[in-house]
């Protein structure tokens, strides 16, 4: 089995799907000859030709509209938005158009689009490159939102996303692109959307998280283990639809939970997770469910980034409040 970074695993998944289905099209700014600004689409234009893998003019709304029009012609578009902070330029195509097409057309048309885009903090980008905007997407009925935390998951989830007949927003955390390698099978496999992964089993506390925060949470869990706490870590992997069953089963077992997200506290996925726990498992709880999240400010300029972003120490601090309640 090959050792791959997340960039390589995504590239591998894209190659697999271009081979698998002649209707798959990859396009976006600089995805062709250049292979994308992070080389995620490296070599794919050369291998599959300019008809399948092509550059677009520099206009995100146009990229979104192109995906919609191509879907209407039976294609399976995989557009790239170069950085997810640019999503505001394409919000209408995503939230106003593709998400509604199945309903608007009474099921006549569907939008098998997978919008891929890098996001996430900690790599000192300029403004509007690092923001965690997944909450905006998750609040849009008709979309699915997928955020892998490892190369293995990235490949399996991306293949599932591309094969899904509804629009999927597939967010790739910048810090995880080349953070580590792991074994990724060269053959194809899928990971179902809407299913969380229990990354670490435990009996005293459930940490529910996703994206780069999975790694901060695992690190925190290890530290807490040393102090005698058995901590379970759940990686949501898909934040919409949410895998409520896995969350509730874990909380019923541990009786304590915290939710960790990189995004601001206001109106994010963590709030949704807390609500689900309150509605479904309140009698299992030994302590309030607390959140670890960034401050309710605009994403900071890079000098303040390392303080602003939640890290494993923040996770430990909040976990202890819940454990010692």
């Amino acid at each position: 089995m090959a050792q791959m970074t997340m960039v390589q695993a995504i590239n591998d998944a894209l190659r697999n799907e271009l081979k698998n289905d002649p209707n798959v099209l990859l396009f976006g700014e600089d995805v062709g000859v250049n292979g994308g600004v992070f080389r995620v689409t490296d070599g794919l234009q050369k291998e599959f030709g300019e008809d399948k893998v092509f550059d677009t003019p520099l206009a995100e709304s146009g990229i979104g509209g192109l995906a919609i029009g191509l879907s209407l012609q039976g294609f399976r578009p995989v557009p790239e938005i170069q950085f997810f902070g640019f999503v505001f330029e394409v919000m209408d195509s995503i939230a106003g158009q593709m998400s509604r097409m199945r309903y608007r057309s009474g099921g006549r048309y569907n939008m098998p689009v997978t919008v891929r885009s890098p996001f996430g903090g900690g790599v000192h980008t300029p403004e509007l490159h690092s923001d965690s905007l997944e909450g905006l997407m998750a609040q849009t009925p008709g979309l699915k939102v997928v955020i892998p935390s490892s190369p293995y998951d990235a490949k399996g989830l991306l293949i599932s996303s591309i094969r899904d007949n509804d629009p999927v927003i597939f967010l790739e955390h910048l810090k995880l692109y080349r953070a580590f390698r792991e074994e990724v099978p060269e053959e194809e496999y899928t990971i179902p959307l809407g299913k969380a992964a229990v990354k670490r089993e435990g009996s005293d506390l459930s940490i529910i998280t996703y994206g780069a925060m999975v790694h901060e949470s695992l690190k925190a869990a290890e530290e807490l283990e040393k102090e005698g706490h058995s901590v379970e870590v759940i990686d949501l992997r898909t934040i919409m639809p949410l895998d409520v069953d896995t969350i509730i089963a874990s909380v019923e077992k541990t009786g304590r939970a915290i939710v960790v997200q990189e995004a601001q506290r206001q109106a994010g996925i963590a709030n949704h997770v807390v609500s689900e726990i309150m509605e479904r498992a309140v009698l299992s709880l030994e302590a309030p469910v607390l959140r670890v999240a960034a401050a309710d400010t605009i994403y900071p300029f890079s000098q303040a980034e390392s303080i602003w972003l939640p890290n494993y120490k923040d996770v430990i601090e909040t976990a202890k409040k819940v454990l010692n309640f």
Partner: protein
Amino acid sequence: MAGKTQKAQFDVKEQLQAVENQFETLQILNEEGEVVNEAAMPELTDEQLQELMTRMVYTRILDQRSISLNRQGRLGFYAPTAGQEASQLASQFALEKEDFILPGYRDVPQLIWHGLPLSQAFLFSRGHFKGNQIPEGVNVISPQIIIGAQIIQAAGVALGMKKRGAKSVAITYTGDGGASQGDFYEGINFAGAYKAPAIFVVQNNRFAISTPVEKQSAAKTIAQKAVAAGIPGIQVDGMDPLAVYKAVSDARERAINGEGPTLIETLTYRYGPHTMAGDDPTRYRTSDLDNEWEKKDPLVRFRKFLEGKNLWNEDKENEVIERAKEDIKNAIKEADAEPKQKVTDLMENMYEEMPHHLKEQYEIYKEKESK
């Protein structure tokens, strides 16, 4: 060399003037129904000419009936079409069945003549999703509400056709206001860059709700915006069915021959309000202007033209009017027979497979709706 005026390398005003001068209005039939541009006459048989007139008369009746049905509370959202028949119907008349229409919300007539059953047009107006459930083989999408969103989608449909090697085109409609949207520029630019077989029709009816076209842009014509995208642009008399037909069929020919997209501006006018939801055009238009445009009426001039060729008379016209009224009556009956839309219908159409959270909510609404 401060203070010293250097002679410009070229005269920017002259350059702009030169561009603007190239966008003359194509007209074939004048207001009197006389052919003023024999060279541009499209090749249409007598039967085709009669059919085009039939569609315009039929659609004028449909508009009148829709307005009164709306006033009686028997229709919902409705954007009147009278005045724009040549612009809407002669452009659709130049299409083939395999061509794909992406309309704005005033462009329901084109959908009907492309194959959308009238009863569905009424269901759309009534806010029932079945109005948008386009039958198989009818190549249209339901009317777009967001101004201009359909324009970039048209570029995508056209690119898809090109990739499939199809000899067909995507045609989209917007208005003078729509030509100010970013999506308009992105759409014509994308289609141009990919040489995609698209036709962008801007029906310049002079007012975006109340805002006059003069306040939309410093550009003298909308057609000239094509220059920036590097694609052909043409301005036509949108009250002249033959000119509209000619412009669209030429654009279609170029598109299927691999020559890329065309922007067509049709100069037209809506006689009625923006929509039937309380718009009052007397707040922003003078009756002088209304009268000036009503003199250009597409039905009047085409009727004169056809009568001159002995292809039209009062009997024919009455026959069409009666047929339209009968069809409308039947279509309303059909629409009335459609059961009311339910929240569970909506839930069934959100995703291919209902996710667990919707399944839970589905059960709740099923229970509510059974009462």
